[in-house]
């Protein structure tokens, strides 16, 4: 049976959507990746996935985008034990070096608090920034993408990350 994965992100985004497509493609045909629009999601549909990949770009000086932020009160009451969650997010390490991909960290910690198992941690090597809420014990709690400054590395990073996820899901 194919592993089912909910790939949840905002369909109204341009950059995150583009990279979500790349993530889906990297999983290949052996995985049942369902694209889900976070802007329309409800608790039941979120909880229907055991395996999730979440797209969460960082807004302003280290905030969740509204569509995730407005879903947080729902997450706060969820029981996520048994769920595996991987996060990817766009950030700008040159423009916002003090809050690079913070949103990955904010969402990851909230999910972990509710019992989810976080997977898909990555090395911060190759990025230059000052601080990140996504960094814990020397690793990012997900995949950091910086298409503003390191666009050329994006495809390779996604590919490697998805290969890692295939082992961790």
């Amino acid at each position: 049976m194919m592993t089912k994965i909910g790939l949840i992100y905002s369909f109204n985004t341009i950059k995150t959507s583009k990279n979500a497509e790349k993530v889906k493609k990297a999983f290949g045909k052996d995985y049942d990746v369902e694209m889900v629009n976070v802007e329309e999601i409800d608790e039941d549909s979120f909880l229907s996935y055991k395996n999730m990949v979440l797209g969460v770009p960082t807004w302003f000086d280290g905030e969740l985008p509204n569509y995730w932020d407005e879903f947080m009160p729902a997450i706060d009451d969820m029981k996520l034990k048994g769920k595996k969650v991987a996060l990817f997010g766009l950030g700008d390490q040159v423009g916002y070096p003090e809050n690079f991909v913070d949103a990955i960290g904010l969402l990851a910690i909230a999910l972990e608090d509710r019992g989810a198992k976080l997977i898909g941690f990555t090395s911060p090597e190759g990025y230059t920034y000052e601080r990140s809420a996504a960094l814990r014990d020397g690793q990012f709690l997900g995949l950091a993408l910086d298409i503003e400054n390191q666009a050329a590395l994006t495809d390779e990073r996604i590919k490697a990350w998805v290969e890692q996820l295939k082992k961790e899901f």
Partner: protein
Amino acid sequence: MTVKKKYSIKGTPKKLLSEWFNLMTLGRALDEKAPNYLKQAIGWSYHAPYAGHDGIQLAIGQIFDRKTDHLFPYYRDMLTSLSAGLTAEEVIFNGISKDNDVAGGGRHMSNHFAKPEWNVHNVSSCTGNHTLHAVGIARAVKHYKGKGVAISSQGESSVSEGYVYEAINGASKEQLPVIFVFQDNGYGISVPKKDQTANRKVADNFKGLKYLKIFHCNGKDVFDSMNTMTEAKAYAAENQMPAIVQANCVRMGSHSNSDKHELYRDNAELSYVEKYDPLAKFRRLLIRYKRFTEAELVKIEDDVKLQVKKAHRAGLTAPDPDPNSIHDFVIPDAYPAEKYPEGLHNETGEPKKLIEGLNETLKAEFRNNPDTFIWGQDIANKDKGGIFNVSKGMQQEFGIERVFNAPIAEDFIMGTANGMSRFNDKIRIVVEGAEFADYFWPAMEQFVETTHEYWRTKGQYSPNITVRLASGGYIGGGLYHSQNIEGALATFPGVRIVYPSYADDAAGLLRTSIRSKGMTVFMEPKALYNDPKAQAVVPDDFEVPFGKARVRREGTDLTIVTYGNTTHMCVEVADQIVKDLGKNVEVIDIRTLVPLDKETIIKSVAKTNKVLVVHEDKVFAGFGGEIAATITEEAFKHLDAPVRRVGSTFTPVGFNRILEKATLPNTDKIYAAAKDLLDY
């Protein structure tokens, strides 16, 4: 593990959510309506829209308790003010500058919302200026064991102002319950915040300050803002320590109605700031989490429309201010000084030095009124009391809470005086504005601000402060220990300026200054502190009313009008002239520059018909020009000669004694001018 927060979309009572939605909808309706008043030429010519700051502004107003706290909103704080309790009518009265504007009857700019009666303070348009006032009033809250906190609100760019650092440093040093809120929308008018400071979050610049706790929140989110402000208030009140709350906002509109943000923000940015509209987000949450139905929210929105209509009608029919009222509330009435109504006495006994007169009067007034305070640089350390020891022994007698050193920051000294005085009108504050008058310039912004308070609030707040400044030259002090700044200060309405030259007048004027409401600049001619020439017998209870000149020597042939150091020179010259020329020169020591005793001057001119005006300050643009012009305007018919002036050259004062002598007036220069006039 995340901590359970007090406020959340699911847990907050519906009634409270309803109040918040009403306030936010009302605020936004007024914010959007404000530009129409300008378009229709009704008013509100200054409007800084707050849209995008909704979460944090709601929260500031909600945590403010008018019985115990003090709120200092800035010019973008419309929702803050509504949330703190101002009505839609009160917002519109201020916006279109009506007489019943509770901030100050249309005297201050529009969009400067205040209600002093409720401790929502009326603040300057100078950005960040009120941070020092918040610190000053927090000092009083702590001293009088109040339960409240001071909340100062400002944009993130105004944190660049030097006095904001001084305020936060002072609150840290004194461990004061102040919450500094930085509403960060990323811009100071058109200037992006990266051009202000290196840290994107300017609050991080203050990380090293002891006792200070820094909070960050999403100012666009009601619940995050409410929780953060609640935590910050608890921290400040319980620990009696300062906090900073940096709230991340967006500015959905231009800086103000004179700014066009399309000139520097691209379409993508304008579109995402719209998308992050905090009110729309709050509304979505209310529906999504089933706290309200669409119909319920529409009902509130419809009700807001009616509230705005009603307030609008009240605004249009409200009275305008009376043009004849402009002279009201420039400065409050002074202490009447009824014991010595002319500021004269016949006391006999042991003469005292001028410095003794000051020291003893300060101590007497501090004994008389327990709500007196004095601070400044170098004001008290063991046997040292002030740079010239004027306040010697005061800290030992009155304690460190009433007599204390301030950091070397003149605007902090001045600004916190303005703040502390707001606590109640029994408080009387004396500050050494600077070690020397020459160093008062950094305090000028706070000084000017303080001169405005009484008028701007239409008499609701009077800063009751005596600013002592050691002034003038003749000590070989050079450019920075010789300046006379009274001419410059006299150009500001809202302050009295006195400049005694004898010990008794110094004591009497100081007593009257300390007992009076309003601000008085008390110039001390430092060259005379210990000079035997300035010694006089000082009655223990001596009082000198403001605006009463003293004729130091009577005469019939020439009037010399003077004050300060040169009074003694003029008396000497007059004594010499009677010996040399047999002419009698009248010497008037004005003692008070503002208010000026025109009556005594004109009466003398009518008798002598010739006038020489002498002061130590520069002739060019010095206060003597005002005296000369007044005489020319009001007593021209009595003049037999042009009004002459003697004072300093239009140069700085050189350090070398030869240069100093060439610059400052002296008896030779005064004698020559007096003789010329007598010969005219």
